């Protein structure tokens, strides 16, 4: 597209509905075409890593909740996994199942938010209401499990905080049944809507090379057709016991790595997560949910542990010097990495398509800024 007017620099955000939080994009525009979009971040910076050095190992967990507040459980799990590996703590069977159940519920909840808000970005308001109605059911279940609606502090070092009892399992079974009838509705409402396809297919393409160069993980990488899911590629916990497929971009519309495929991967992942939930609820054994750890004090050492969160690989680089507090905690956040290459894949897009690109990457600013 060639428009050769005067270059105009526009600030998009930090208070803009489609930047999904306090992100400021510095757009160098030529007419409607964006020459360069430079993300300016840090508006939500709380220096989580400094706070983490001042509290006990278990005390860090609630701080990790507040990084990615849309999918808090995934963050907790990643940090706790790192701490447990350092301190050689073991988790009882039932505890592992509780973790899988909560994490998969959380993944669905997070993808529902992505689905709903992406619809709004593209000018469709109805899907958002449907998504939030269904997400509310998950929040109810998680509230039954942990006592909190959004920031759970559910996963603790050595296990989980409270049990996923038979009543909750029944609720989950009902939810799975219900959600399976909703997914076709979602597809009818948004996925195969002509206007939506026109707005998203072939728009905002992130190639596989770009994705690997900028270490984009999770649904955004899988949309390029690459089968990379840490639950299968670097298995942790008990994920090797469940049967599920790695969701990849289908290319039914558009090309691999475009906005439509990124969107579609999330909806397929909801289906796959439902499969895992179904199996986990069936298999969950009786027994304790948490190991009895009185004082957690891991031996000196360092570790990098990672899990597959809703937005991609959440990693924690943790160093212990044998104290009651971690010596250093570094959080690698998938949204931060995904934004770091934004200037590259947003080049020569229209401003309206930039919104499609940003919405389909599905960032959470709490996690970018930490």
């Amino acid at each position, binding site marked *: 597209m060639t428009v050769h007017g005067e270059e105009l620099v526009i600030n998009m955000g930090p208070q803009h509905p489609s930047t999904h939080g306090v992100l400021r994009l510095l757009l160098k525009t030529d007419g409607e075409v964006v020459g360069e979009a430079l993300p300016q971040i840090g508006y939500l910076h709380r220096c989580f890593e400094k706070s983490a050095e001042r509290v006990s190992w278990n005390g860090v967990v609630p701080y990790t909740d507040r990084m990615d507040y849309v999918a808090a459980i995934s963050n907790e799990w990643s940090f706790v996994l790192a701490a447990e590996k350092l301190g050689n703590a073991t988790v009882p069977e039932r505890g592992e199942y509780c973790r899988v159940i909560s994490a998969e519920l959380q993944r669905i909840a997070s993808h529902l938010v992505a689905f709903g808000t992406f619809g709004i970005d593209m000018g469709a308001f109805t899907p958002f209401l449907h998504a939030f109605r269904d997400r509310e059911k998950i929040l109810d279940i998680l509230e039954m499990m942990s006592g909190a609606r959004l920031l759970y502090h559910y996963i603790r070092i050595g296990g989980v905080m409270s049990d996923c009892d038979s009543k909750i399992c029944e609720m989950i079974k009902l939810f799975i049944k219900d959600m399976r009838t909703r997914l076709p509705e979602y597809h009818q409402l948004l996925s195969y809507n002509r206007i939506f396809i026109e707005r998203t297919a072939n728009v905002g393409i992130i190639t596989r090379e770009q994705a690997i160069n900028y270490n984009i993980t999770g649904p955004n990488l899988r949309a390029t057709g690459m089968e990379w899911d840490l639950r299968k590629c670097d298995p942790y916990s008990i994920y090797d016991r469940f049967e599920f497929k790695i969701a990849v971009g289908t290319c039914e519309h558009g090309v691999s790595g475009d906005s439509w495929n990124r969107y579609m991967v999330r909806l397929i992942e909801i289906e796959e997560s439902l499969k895992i939930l179904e199996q986990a609820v069936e298999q969950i054994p009786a027994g304790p949910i948490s190991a009895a750890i009185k004082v957690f004090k891991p031996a000196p050492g360092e570790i990098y542990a990672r899990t597959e969160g809703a937005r991609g690989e959440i990693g924690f680089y943790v160093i212990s010097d*044998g104290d009651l507090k971690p010596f250093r905690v*570094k959080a690698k956040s998938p949204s931060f990495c995904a934004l*770091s290459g934004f200037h590259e894949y947003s080049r020569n897009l229209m401003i309206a398509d930039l919104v499609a690109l940003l919405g389909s990457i599905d960032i959470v600013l709490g996690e970018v800024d930490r």
Partner: protein
Amino acid sequence: MGITVSKTVYNQLKTQFGDAIGEYIETASPFIEVKSESIREVARFCKELGFDSLMCLSAVDTKGMKISSSPQENKTQKPAPPKEEIQVVYHLNSTFTRDKIALKVCLDRTSPRLPSVSSIWGVANWHEREAYDMFGVIFDGHPALSRILCPEDWEGWPLRKDYVFPERYHDVEHKRKPSGAEFLDGEKKQ
């Protein structure tokens, strides 16, 4: 990821770069020590070996560390604190073989400086800016090294262990008073 894999990579690096490669240290996630001058060449070589993605780049300040996180060579000795230095750690991942390795560079605390790897992995650009922002590590050859999370005019390196918390920023005082202090002030006035 077996420990054997990183041992093979270590041997390959050692034959290629010789003295620039330091020790191979086994902890929960083993890492390879690299001299700061040659980190860019080592990183490029690792990428050619198949480590195509940089998972994480972190800086660490070891000041005040009680016991070194790397195991002691002499087991009979009492565990000693490590040297005070700034470390930069690279966690690499291969999407072909699914292997992981870690490289570690140790730098002088007074003027931490090393070559940038942002030309090798695009994601390093922001990670290096973060390390500069939080620790004051200078990356030579970085296209635009500036603060990323803190405001441009922020003073000091927040994640260093000897960081002094500022009491005011832009004429706004934010020193925390002991709880109930305003109540005590009121009593005094009466």
